[in-house]
């Protein structure tokens, strides 16, 4: 760890070096623990166990669905935040960003009180349409979208704010309609932010645990996503949960590597 000192001209004082090394070790040791303790021999068996495959399949479907919902609803929301001045915008943005810092289990309880069978909206959904979200895959998508969409909204909003608006003005001056300007000029220009936001949102959705188990419950194949399976496997088949944890770790690592230019700077 000491070998990767970035600054060559300045030497870190000893106490800073020690604390920094401790700080780094705090993150790296658990990762090493996971890699070392993973039973590689049984990894394939654990991976292809029916329960695992079911959790994987459900996790992929639910996280992709919530990313799709987040794109459809979140991009317009980001556009409004970036382009429209209206009273209460700051408050509204704060409220819709809240899930990023809110304990997910609190989000799950709030979702229950809103969309549960007796919830504000949920009671109406149940009586009029016969739709109940808890204990369903749709409930998982709700929980994941609730927690993950803010990542997309903030990333896309930043992209919209930093783009060069003269291209839009030029397109408009040439007679393009607003929808055409949005789809043919704005979206391509913010494509990198859009992609980064979608990937962040997807990764957060994939890892969602607290809101999901609180709002959607836990049943294999219906609401038991990978993080829930990992948590429950630790009680019955710890080796299996190590393997699943490693998969989620690799996915997160891939996301980080994919976004390295945005997050880690281009040094």
């Amino acid at each position: 760890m000491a070998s990767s000192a970035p600054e060559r001209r300045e030497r870190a004082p000893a106490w800073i070096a020690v604390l920094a090394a401790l700080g780094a070790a705090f993150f790296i040791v658990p990762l090493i623990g996971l890699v070392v303790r993973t039973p590689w021999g049984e990894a394939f068996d654990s991976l292809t166990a029916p329960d695992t495959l079911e959790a994987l399949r459900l996790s992929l479907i639910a996280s992709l669905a919530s990313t799709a919902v987040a794109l459809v609803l979140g991009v317009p929301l980001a556009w409004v935040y970036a382009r429209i001045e209206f009273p209460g915008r700051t408050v509204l943005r704060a409220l819709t960003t809240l899930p990023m810092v809110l304990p997910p289990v609190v989000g799950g309880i709030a979702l229950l009180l809103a969309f549960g069978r007796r919830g504000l909206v949920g009671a109406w959904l149940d009586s009029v349409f016969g739709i109940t979200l808890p204990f369903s895959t749709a409930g998982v998508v709700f929980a994941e979208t609730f927690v993950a969409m803010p990542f997309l909204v903030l990333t896309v909003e930043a992209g919209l704010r930093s783009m060069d608006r003269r291209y839009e003005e030029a397109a408009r001056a040439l007679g393009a309609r607003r929808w055409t300007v949005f789809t043919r000029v704005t979206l391509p220009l913010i494509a990198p932010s859009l992609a980064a936001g979608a990937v962040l949102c997807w990764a957060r959705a994939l890892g969602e645990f607290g809101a999901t188990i609180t709002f959607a419950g836990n049943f294999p194949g219906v609401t038991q996503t990978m993080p829930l399976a990992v948590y429950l496997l630790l009680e019955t088949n710890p080796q299996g949960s190590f393997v699943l944890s490693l998969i989620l770790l690799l996915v997160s690592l891939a996301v980080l590597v994919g976004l390295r230019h945005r997050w880690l700077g281009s040094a």
Partner: protein
Amino acid sequence: MRATLVAVAVLLGAACGTASGGVSISVFAAASLTDTFKSLGSSFERDHAGATVKFSFAGTPTLATQIEQGAHADVFAAADTANMDRLKAGGFVIGEPKVFVHNRLEIVVAPGNPKRISGLADLARPGLIYIAAGPTVPAGKYASQALAKAGVQVTPRSQETDVKAVVSKVELGEADAGIVYATDVRAAGDRVSGVPIPDQYNVLATYPIAAIKGAGGLANEFIDFALSDAGQSILESFGFQRA
């Protein structure tokens, strides 16, 4: 690297070690014992001046896993013998676990039983949302045994992580019914109602208690207290059956 690891260990040790200074014991107990053990703990503290009992309540397999992973527990009270046996086999238990109490199952429903559930067979009714504790949780295992005895085929819509979560989901109205312990229905008061399960289908839950490796003498005193007449009366007052 090695020095770093040592330093981390020292720091963590300092951070965690301070808690075990006084005369206190940490009791890991099945979720169904929540209210009962809090009351038992207060009585124990009154009898043993200066002693403090700290509780951690969760699903039995969750607690067993935490103990296996090195969580500091002095006493473990489980809602089934399987998880206790697992810890015993792993060498985590001191001596022989003792059965200290029994429990019965009941169907938990919304207050006043609006869905008119009269027995286990009604749980398979189409459109009715039935939930239970997960298959590794004692309450979940006992629930499947009861359903099998009654010849009722129904899959729970959710496998909750402990029995109290089943009660909560019924109380919130998200589920119509669940199979829990009779003591859970009683503990929830008028927030839920209970539908009895006839003896021929009911399952007698067995709760063992044991001291965990590294525990001091106070742990055994707590276990003795739970098994004493005074302790048994407290457990009985919450609806448990004497061992």
